[in-house]
């Protein structure tokens, strides 16, 4: 029940050379990984933690190997989950380590480089980002550095493929070689040694700031950083909404409605006689009709574009800047600025968002992020459904639903912050350089995310559609509608058929919206329906992950609170709306 690829460790064959790719965060490790590994890449979860790492095949001549992209760490003190995973992977053993060093910040990177030498595994150092360092007036003598470290140092520009073959060749050559570990140094001794090395190998010429450096500077300042961030978010939203709408209207809907559906309807009509069974397949709610239209024509284009935009912002190093800019505001609701990243990821899918909040935050912050995401952050599938429902009718209605979601998110944060004892984790982070994302790494990440979406989200959605078809075509819906009629028709002002949304919404969030498409509702009814869907129960996968990550009690409490709010807000909007429009 996860919208997230996560599988347990796979045994690695003994004949294959095992390479650990290690380094500080944001040094270009993942780019090196995606350039050196083949098409077969998997994301794995380290047993007993929430830390994921990627593993891929790597071949050089006749030598075969596997490369593990170890989570980026600053040290091996094992104080964070990522550090614990890095230490465990080292203790499991490997044939060779590729340690990636950032040439623009050699001093800080050498701390990890030195700690790795305490393990009996051969090391090759990749001195990456030498082009950026050069632009910044930094020059590092790789030969001298290699002498000081007692291991090969290969200058690389991973994004341009420079030096990578040399790096791989040297790694394969070193693999299986015996290596005697260096004795452990104290922290003070290590830093003294590092200072000496940097003085020997690095020269720096002061040059004026480059365009990228000016941009890096501007995007981290409150002014103009905050307005720029808002602009970036508006443009991102425009790309997802506009692009998704265009894809849907110009390509996918005509293809599904004019080609695929008539073809399937004709085909089924030839084979299946008229009656319930034919209706189940190609009726208004037929499995082959909405089972293709909803997931592929209405949802997929928005999800695809969301992940393109999100991955771009993530890989360009811009995301942590948004975290820094949002810190002052998010502190008011008890969470640190960095939590903006899992919250934004929640606009894709709540499951990785809730899991993603686990790595660096306190219990209090995790509860707040999980509740915010479950309550008021529509996932990409649900957003797509909103856009299909409201986008064509009223952009204003669409905007008000989102505005309401943000207000409620803030309110939920304020309330939980007051209710749950504890403190939030202070912000302490390195702001990465801004980079143009690497094409290969970007494509691999997007592929993995879309694969996860198709497997984990589309499956339950198709199942929901099958149930919808059965319910709608067999008359069960009428019974259910009669039961909850007073609530749906009286308090919420929706037609009784809308009860299908409530029934299916338990399974997937977008299924609380999509049945409303077929009902020819007024704008007020559309807003009411959307608001109910927005705050309604989190989907089954989210419920499961909440129960797993926190407890069944927390999951039930969140579910109860969201559902109550859904009917409360939906009803209030309906009653107020009718009062204002004078239709009561």
């Amino acid at each position, binding site marked *: 029940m996860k919208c997230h690829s996560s599988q347990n460790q796979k045994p690695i064959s003994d004949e294959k050379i095992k390479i650990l790719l290690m380094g500080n965060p944001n040094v270009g490790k993942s780019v090196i990984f995606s350039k050196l590994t083949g098409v077969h890449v998997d994301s794995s979860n380290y047993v007993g933690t929430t830390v994921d790492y990627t593993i891929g095949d790597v071949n050089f001549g006749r030598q075969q190997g596997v490369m593990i992209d170890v989570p980026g760490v600053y040290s091996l003190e094992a104080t964070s989950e990522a550090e614990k995973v890095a230490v465990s992977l080292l203790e499991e053993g490997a044939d060779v380590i590729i340690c990636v060093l950032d040439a623009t*910040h050699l001093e800080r990177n050498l701390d990890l480089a030195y700690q790795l030498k305490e393990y009996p595994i051969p090391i090759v150092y990749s001195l990456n980002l030498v082009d950026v360092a050069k632009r910044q007036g930094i020059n590092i003598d790789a030969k001298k550095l290699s002498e000081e470290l007692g291991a090969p140092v290969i200058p690389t520009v991973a994004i341009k493929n420079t030096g990578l073959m040399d790096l791989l060749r040297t790694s394969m050559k070193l693999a299986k070689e015996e290596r005697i570990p260096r004795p452990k140094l104290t922290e003070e001794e290590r830093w003294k040694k590092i200072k000496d090395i940097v003085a020997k190998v690095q020269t720096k010429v002061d040059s004026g700031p480059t365009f990228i450096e000016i941009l890096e500077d501007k995007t*981290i300042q409150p002014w103009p950083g905050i307005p720029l961030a808002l602009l970036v978010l508006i443009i991102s939203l425009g790309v997802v909404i506009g692009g998704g709408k265009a894809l849907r209207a110009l390509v996918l809907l005509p293809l599904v409605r004019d080609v695929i559906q008539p073809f399937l309807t004709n085909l089924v009509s030839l084979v299946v006689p008229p009656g319930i069974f034919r209706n189940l397949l190609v009726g208004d709610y037929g499995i082959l009709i909405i089972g293709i239209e909803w997931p592929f024509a209405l949802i997929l284009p928005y999800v695809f574009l969301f992940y393109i935009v999100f991955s771009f912002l993530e890989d360009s190093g811009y995301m942590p800047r948004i975290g820094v800019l949002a810190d002052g505001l998010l*502190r008011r609701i008890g969470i640190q600025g960095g939590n903006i990243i899992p919250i934004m990821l929640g606009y894709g899918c709540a499951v990785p968002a809730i899991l993603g909040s686990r790595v660096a935050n306190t219990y209090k912050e995790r509860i707040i992020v999980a509740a915010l995401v479950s309550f008021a952050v529509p996932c990409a599938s649900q957003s797509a459904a909103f856009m299909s429902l409201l986008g064509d009718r009223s952009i204003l209605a669409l905007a008000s639903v989102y505005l309401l979601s943000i207000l409620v998110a803030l309110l939920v944060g304020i309330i939980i912050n007051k209710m749950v004892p504890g403190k939030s984790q*202070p*912000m*302490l982070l*390195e702001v990465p350089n801004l980079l143009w994302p690497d094409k290969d790494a970007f494509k691999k990440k997007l592929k993995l995310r879309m694969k996860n979406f198709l497997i984990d989200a589309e499956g339950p959605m198709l199942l929901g559609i099958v149930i919808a078809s059965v319910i709608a075509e067999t008359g069960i819906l009428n019974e259910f509608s009669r039961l909850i009629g007073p609530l749906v028709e009286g308090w919420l002002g929706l037609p009784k058929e809308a009860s299908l949304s409530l029934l299916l919404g338990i399974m997937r969030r977008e299924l609380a919206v999509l049945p409303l498409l077929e009902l020819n509702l007024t704008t007020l009814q559309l807003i009411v329906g959307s608001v109910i869907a927005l705050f309604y129960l989190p989907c089954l996968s989210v419920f499961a992950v909440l129960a797993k990550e926190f407890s069944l009690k927390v999951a039930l409490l969140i579910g109860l609170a969201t559902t109550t709010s859904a009917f409360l807000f939906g009803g209030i909007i309906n009653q107020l709306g009718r009062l204002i429009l004078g239709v009561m």
Partner: protein
Amino acid sequence: MTLAFGNKRAKYRVLKLPDSHFLKALGLRKGTEFTLECKHPFKGPVVVKVGCRCIAIDYDIARDIEVEEVS
């Protein structure tokens, strides 16, 4: 003075800082010289530049870092 009360674009040297491994790993140790890039509103983080890298430091941590201005 403490870092939280420093001025934008001024250069400082660390005199005393909390015993945090992470601060050291990010390059902030006793004697490190850096530039204060900016301070964020509502007691948001203080951003400093050590070498070529920016580090965002929580306001509460910045209050515990003693610094002196260098010319």
